């Protein structure tokens, strides 16, 4: 079977980075994304984080997730248009307004996947414990990150099982038979996800994770690459923060349309 969490990824440059640096990077980017509203800046951060993710050479997974996000955006465009037609008081949504939430998700998804697919869980748990983070924080974080490759493996197996059974699952099928397709995908995945969560908890307990002094890791020093990665993140965020707001013209135009319409009504 094809590898969904390639061990080779952990030997890539992302895999060689200290887990603390990756988690701090992920946390910083997610915090900054709350405040960054400029679509050009989000686009820039998305492109930078995509480069990180693509360097792991997990193209199939990456593009599948991008296709799903794209599908979500197209759906949101469709529903916005439908609401405008049905509800007369509904404000017209610009392209930028509908794309911004998805642009915000993009860097976050990239960073989350890149960290998840390039880490060694056992070692990372030990290092995080050394950060003196409370167990209630580092254990769920690591289990959540470990959940991603396991879940992706299940999705792949489910796709094969559906193909064997002769049940087509595709985006056109999702549009034509939404309830049926959702049930076919979600019932086994939800059951598996619940079991996987339970299994991971048992696996951690049986390994005595979180108890006692924890691993003897000695003094784990950050290396040159770790510093460069942190500097790169800081630089990317700084550039993103200072970028001019490219989408403002489009929004102004939308407002003008609204003004004109109101004026016409008056």
């Amino acid at each position, binding site marked *: *079977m*094809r*590898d*969904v*969490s*390639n*061990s*080779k990824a*952990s*030997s890539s440059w992302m895999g060689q980075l200290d887990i603390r640096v990756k988690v701090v990077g992920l946390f910083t980017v997610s915090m900054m994304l709350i405040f960054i509203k400029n679509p050009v800046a989000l686009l820039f951060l998305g492109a930078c984080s995509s480069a990180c993710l693509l360097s792991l050479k997990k193209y199939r997974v990456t593009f599948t997730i991008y296709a799903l996000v794209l599908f979500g955006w197209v759906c949101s465009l469709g529903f916005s248009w439908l609401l405008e037609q049905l509800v007369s008081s509904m404000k017209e949504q610009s392209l930028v307004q509908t794309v911004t939430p998805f642009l915000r998700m993009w860097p976050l998804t990239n960073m989350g996947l890149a960290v998840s697919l390039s880490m*060694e*869980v*056992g*070692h990372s*748990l*030990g290092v995080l414990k050394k950060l003196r983070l409370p167990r209630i924080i580092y254990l769920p974080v690591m289990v959540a990150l*470990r959940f991603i*490759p396991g879940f992706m*493996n*299940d999705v792949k*197996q*489910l796709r*094969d*099982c*559906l*193909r*064997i*059974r*002769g*049940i087509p699952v595709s985006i056109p099928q999702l549009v034509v038979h939404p309830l049926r397709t959702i*049930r*076919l995908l979600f*019932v*086994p995945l939800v*059951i*598996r996800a619940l*079991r996987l969560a339970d*299994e*991971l*908890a*048992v*696996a*951690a*307990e*049986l*390994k*005595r*994770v*979180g*108890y*006692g*002094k*924890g*691993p*003897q*890791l000695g003094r784990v020093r950050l290396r040159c690459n770790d510093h460069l990665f942190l500097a790169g993140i800081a630089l990317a965020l700084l550039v993103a923060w200072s970028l001019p707001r490219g989408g403002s013209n489009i929004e102004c135009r939308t407002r003008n349309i609204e003004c004109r319409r109101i004026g016409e009504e008056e």
Partner: protein
Amino acid sequence: MIDFKNVSYTYPYQSVPALRNINLHVGRGEALLLTGASGCGKSTVGRIVNGLIPEHFAGTLSGQVLIDGKELRDHAFHDMTQIVGSLFQDPEQQFLSTTVNDELRTALEWRGLSAKEIDEALHPVIDRLGLRSKLDDSLFTLSEGEKQKVVLASVLALKPRVLMLDEPTANLDPIAVTELCKLLRELKRDGMTLVIFDHRLYWLESLVDHVGILEDGQLAEHGDFQTLEKHRDRFGLRAVRGGMSNIEQGISNVEGNPPRPFGTPPKRGISPSLGFQVSSISFAYPRKAPLFEELSLHFPAGKITALCGTNGCGKTTLARLMIGLEKPKEGAFQLNEESIAGRDLLKTSSLVLQNTELQLYMRSVEEELTSAARAAGTPLDVNEILESFQLSNTRNRHPQSLSGGQRQRLVIACALLKNPKLLILDEPTSGLDGRNMRLLAGQIREAAERGAVVILITHDHELMNECCDLVLNCAITG
């Protein structure tokens, strides 16, 4: 070492107890085998022995459980993991990491051992279980048997005093079973207490001191290994005899006639040339060494072929290629003398994988069968199917709520409804008791008699002897 005194246990939200008045004693350095029909309560006993009940599973536990002379409730759970090592039936349940090396080291690291101490603990176990070449591999790419070895290595490296093994041979090839048996005998000689839950009994005669047969949560019989022979029919157990020497030769003769060697011409009036022809296929996973080069095989129609061989030799990959889930780099396939490829392969064939949870989608067992029949365009008599697979009392239940054995039977019933010309089943009897194994063997035999090419990927010798005509033994070369 382990004492159960009038132990009863009821799972949360259940009215019927899973265990009732169990009394057991296993001394230090002794080996106990617990067996019985699927769903008899074996796994529940295991969960009590390793402390998951009551720590992880709530519910009502009564009676007295003593582990290492101390009440179970007085042991802190994380200390229990130092006394009892557990090997579950599904090895994936125990993986916390994603690579073999990381998985093996994690538990030792959390016991506070230094890197040198970890290496000292791991190296002998890694060599003993032949895992050295797999250390950098992802756990997701290993075969089921290899996954089981990884879990066993990580448990043995911790040097527990009690080793609890749930269906340890379900996914192991015959050579690995022989090795496991030898390893367990050595551990027992060194004073380790063994508690084994298994349906497959033939390999245990030289190992276990006591056996217990569970039925509906009660210890119905208790005694020495001969007890199994006496009560085999009553409890629907599997065969208890089968020399290890036979297993070492590759194919065992558990009971009955041995499978005929590969290449015997088919009977029942089906032309020997009909069947599934694999012609000069080559295949390699991305960035991996070639798995098959110029491989040619013929699987006759109307026959059941057992595909066996060492763990990780590519049996499941061959099955995925044959039904069109993977594409060979070179080569072609022919079904009943006609070339076939891609989507046509998927349309005319069925593959039943080991993970049954992902193969059931509907709201009830009946709906599952109806949907499978509709997708295949075959007429359906639900009552007949339910009866023949002994699922009548589950008709309106959600498929995901069924027991492992019931799910397995339902998935196979759905695969057969497709009326496939090529049917491949991957370890269809792993975790099944003797009665259910024989039931499945009968159903598989019927599919072959209808003219299908049937391939069983299995290490289950009893199943092979029960229904297989031919055996194809795979081996890693080069």
